[in-house]
């Protein structure tokens, strides 16, 4: 059968405008009546400034809600008709276009203090998957480290060397550690581009927890080859490997509702889509030419380096005339998600500041209107929280004032003269409409599944699927108000110039919640909830009932946050087949292999690393020392003052142990090739009595006659055995 291919170069500008106009009209058709109903309710009880503010905020929030729901509706309609004909994956004849890829592609993974074992296992899977597809020769791999924790740094080096050895990947799998992590992830990628970017046509950007199958990467490269006017294609990553309830909630929801949402998103974004920072392929020449990020003038929350670089890079690429597409239907793109609410909020704090910074770019010169919209939507996604909070506060204040007056609703007719509902009927109708819109994506996602019984089975069957939606709805109802408080606090902190530190996301078992952290961070939320409930009850028990789902979220925040962030309850639901995703019930081979290998690694790495295990091993172990030295450059003309300083630091390190040195001094030594060579030599040539106990222990670990190999059991060396 002849496939009707889509050529993005022939995409007429009017198509996008028509689609966006259509979505806009749909949104307005639902939003305007709702705003009229709300305005009418206020009219019946008398207008004032509070109610005007209430109405304005309602209009903003309701529009956002309708916009989300409409994307699901449009996405469903498209999928029912067999999918949108205007999508980037439709530009390739997958049955015919199976020849070799001519272009060279770099697969880059920027990392910063991540768990080395997990990073390397992810790289291994992608490498092996490409090898199995016979496509490996066109691809090189770069692990781009910005780690500044010596333990992580050395663990990465050892794990990389081990992987190169196991895969025979020398000359194809590279590891680069930057001396200073200027401009964080964006700077890390830019550094790669400056050094090696000109040698590759494309770059596939991964996150530390990304997994992409060889098939997915080849598909992205093939779409780029087919469409020379496309600068960036974003694949949609599916969330996987969640063990806690919180993580499994996210992956269940994104897996179930994601397909209709992304189909709807592609409908109006078309060639002006966005970049999410990873699981995407980028054409390097235009990226290097146009997407270097400016340092924003000034400091504080709106100045300095651009934190959320991805949106800006997509906007710059589009501004330069290159198309940016969302590849909604590419299979084999995965990522992991935070395991608990607190880690999720910490990540949001970073993203929030980055998105608020985009305020400076919304009106930047030359950007495509849709790029401006992406910036604005990114900002609104976080500003919606304080707006929602303000809406609730205003609702309470209005109810309080109403009680204080002792009046009843005015006996006036609705200004929507065609309807003559009672006050209560209209209020219930408005509430039902709002709740209904929240359920629209769920309903359309379920309708979408009707035609795919095998996928329903992979979700655990209709019964478990609906039970999962029930659980997800209840828990997200409880979690969302807490996130609202978090976001509102973060915005205030950001405006108060309390900057955000770059925290590595905790994953797997390390990411489990604990009571102390949950109590400390949610204690205030609980108190707010109790106080608000008392106030609402005093004003009007009906108000308390109306606000009860939100107030329950506040009051139960410690418990809900703790239990949804623990692995054990998550596994109970998993065993019961609840919140199950197809990737969990019928996992692709890559995910199965990853799980098996990580389990093996965890079994071997049961011991906790010593506080200075990385430094100790990079000095004591001849091979770890050599691998470390292979990454350092010897200085041609070292300054005598520096030499003397390093000599003193080395002496102190060996005599008194790593604990005697400040962290920056340890890092300085580890970055100095001369010092690392000398330390290794001096340690082995020293009498046991002349070195600190930690070194004595390090030397004697080789007294055992047990047979060791390099790198040994996973992380054996880096764990400070």
């Amino acid at each position, binding site marked *: 059968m002849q496939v009707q291919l889509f050529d993005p170069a022939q995409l007429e500008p009017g198509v996008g405008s028509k689609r966006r106009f259509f979505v806009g009209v749909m949104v307005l058709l639902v939003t305007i009546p709702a705003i009229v109903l709300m305005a009418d309710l206020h009219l019946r009880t008398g207008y004032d400034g509070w109610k005007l503010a209430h109405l304005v905020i309602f209009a903003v929030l309701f529009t956002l809600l309708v916009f989300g729901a409409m994307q699901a509706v449009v996405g469903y309609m498209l999928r029912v008709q067999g999918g949108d004909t205007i999508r980037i994956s439709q530009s390739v004849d997958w049955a015919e276009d199976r020849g070799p890829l001519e272009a060279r592609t770099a697969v880059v993974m920027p990392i910063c203090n991540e768990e080395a074992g997990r990073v390397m296992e992810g790289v291994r899977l992608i490498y092996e998957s490409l090898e199995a597809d016979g496509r490996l020769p066109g691809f090189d791999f770069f692990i781009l480290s910005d780690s500044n924790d010596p333990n992580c740094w050395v663990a990465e080096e050892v794990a990389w060397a081990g992987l190169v050895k196991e895969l025979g990947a020398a000359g194809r799998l590279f590891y680069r550690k930057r001396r200073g992590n200027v401009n964080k992830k964006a700077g890390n990628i830019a550094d790669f581009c400056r050094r090696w970017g000109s040698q590759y046509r494309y770059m596939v950007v991964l996150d530390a927890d990304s997994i992409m199958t060889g098939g997915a990467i080849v598909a992205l490269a093939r779409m780029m080859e087919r469409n020379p006017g496309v600068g960036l294609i974003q694949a949609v990553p599916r969330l996987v490997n969640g063990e806690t309830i919180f993580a499994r909630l996210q992956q269940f929801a994104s897996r179930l509702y994601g397909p209709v949402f992304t189909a709807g998103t592609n409908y109006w974004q078309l060639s002006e889509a966005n970049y999410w920072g990873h699981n995407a392929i980028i054409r390097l020449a235009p990226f290097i030419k146009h997407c270097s990020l400016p340092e924003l003038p000034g400091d504080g929350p709106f100045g300095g380096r651009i934190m959320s670089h991805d949106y800006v890079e997509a906007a710059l690429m589009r501004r330069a005339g290159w198309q940016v597409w969302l590849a909604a239907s590419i299979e084999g793109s995965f990522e992991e998600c935070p395991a608990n609410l607190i880690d999720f909020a910490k990540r949001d704090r970073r993203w929030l500041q980055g998105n608020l910074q985009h305020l400076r770019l919304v009106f930047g010169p030359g950007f495509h209107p849709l790029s401006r919209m992406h910036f604005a939507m990114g900002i609104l996604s976080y500003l919606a929280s304080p707006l929602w909070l303000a809406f609730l506060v205003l609702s309470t204040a209005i109810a309080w004032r109403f009680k204080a007056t002792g009046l009843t609703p005015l006996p006036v007719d609705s200004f929507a003269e065609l309807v003559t509902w009672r006050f209560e009927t209209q209020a219930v109708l408005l509430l039902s409409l709002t709740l209904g819109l929240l359920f629209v994506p769920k309903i359309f996602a379920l309708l979408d599944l009707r035609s795919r019984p095998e996928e329903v089975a992979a979700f655990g069957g209709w019964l478990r699927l609906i039970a999962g939606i029930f659980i997800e709805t209840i828990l997200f109802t409880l979690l969302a108000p807490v996130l609202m408080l978090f976001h509102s606090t973060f915005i205030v902190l950001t405006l108060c110039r309390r900057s955000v530190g770059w925290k590595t996301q905790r994953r797997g078992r390390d990411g489990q919640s604990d009571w102390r952290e949950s109590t400390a961070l949610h204690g205030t939320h609980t108190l707010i909830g109790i106080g608000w409930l008392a106030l609402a009850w005093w004003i009007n028990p009906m108000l308390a009932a109306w606000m009860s789902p939100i107030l329950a979220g506040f009051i139960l925040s410690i418990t809900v946050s703790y239990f949804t962030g623990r692995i054990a309850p998550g596994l109970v639901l998993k065993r019961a087949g609840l919140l199950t995703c197809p990737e969990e019930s019928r996992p692709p081979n890559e995910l199965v292999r990853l799980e098996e290998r990580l389990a093996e690694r965890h079994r071997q790495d049961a011991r906790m690393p010593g506080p200075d295990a990385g430094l100790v091993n990079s000095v004591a172990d001849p091979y770890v020392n050599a691998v470390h030295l292979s990454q350092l450059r010897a200085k041609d003309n070292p300054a005598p003052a520096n030499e003397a300083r390093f000599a003193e630091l080395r002496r102190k390190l060996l005599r008194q142990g790593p604990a005697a040195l400040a962290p920056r001094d340890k890092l300085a030594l580890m970055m100095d090739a001369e010092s690392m060579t000398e330390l290794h030599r001096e340690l*082995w040539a020293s009498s046991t009595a002349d070195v600190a106990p930690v070194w004595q222990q390090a030397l004697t670990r080789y007294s055992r006659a047990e047979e060791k*190999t390099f790198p040994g059991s996973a992380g054996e060396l880096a764990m400070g055995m």
Partner: protein
Amino acid sequence: MEVMKAQPLLAAAAPDAHWGVATERVEHYLRAHRLRGDDRVARLAKDIIEVARARQRPGAEPVAAAMETAEACLMAWLGSLIPADDHDLRPLLAKGRVALALGGVPDRWPEYFLRHHRPPEELVRVMRETGLSCGPRVKLTHMSPSPENFAPAGRRLPWLAISQGPLPRVMTGLLLTLTVIGAAWSAGL
């Protein structure tokens, strides 16, 4: 068999007990290179110690002398397998050790480790071709930001943020509080 020697011999002078400690250290060092087999390790250590004792300088610690000899032997052996720049042998040591580790040399060819025997071609090939690098040859590319990627209006945005310092913060706090009270008052709350 004879261990690969590095330097001319000097007179020996330390008590045997100290040399016992030195021997143990050399054994640990060899095991740290993942050399297997107690007998093989002991024999190689004994050979190294003999050389070290013979060349020990007066006053030198046996452990230091032994390790100096062990490293010199390793350097000489690696130099016989990998062509190196005569002026700086340190990179050779690092490169050679990486090749030993990645090629699994002590595991695959233990009998040749630090020995004079003519090495198999495969061993030489592995030692010469195995290595690690942070990337292909660097070809620097210019990548710098466009002059201005934000609107002039956007430059004033930092004023949205509350200024640092106690006085501006107190003033901002007071202003916000007064605004809220004023709004409540005017709304007749």
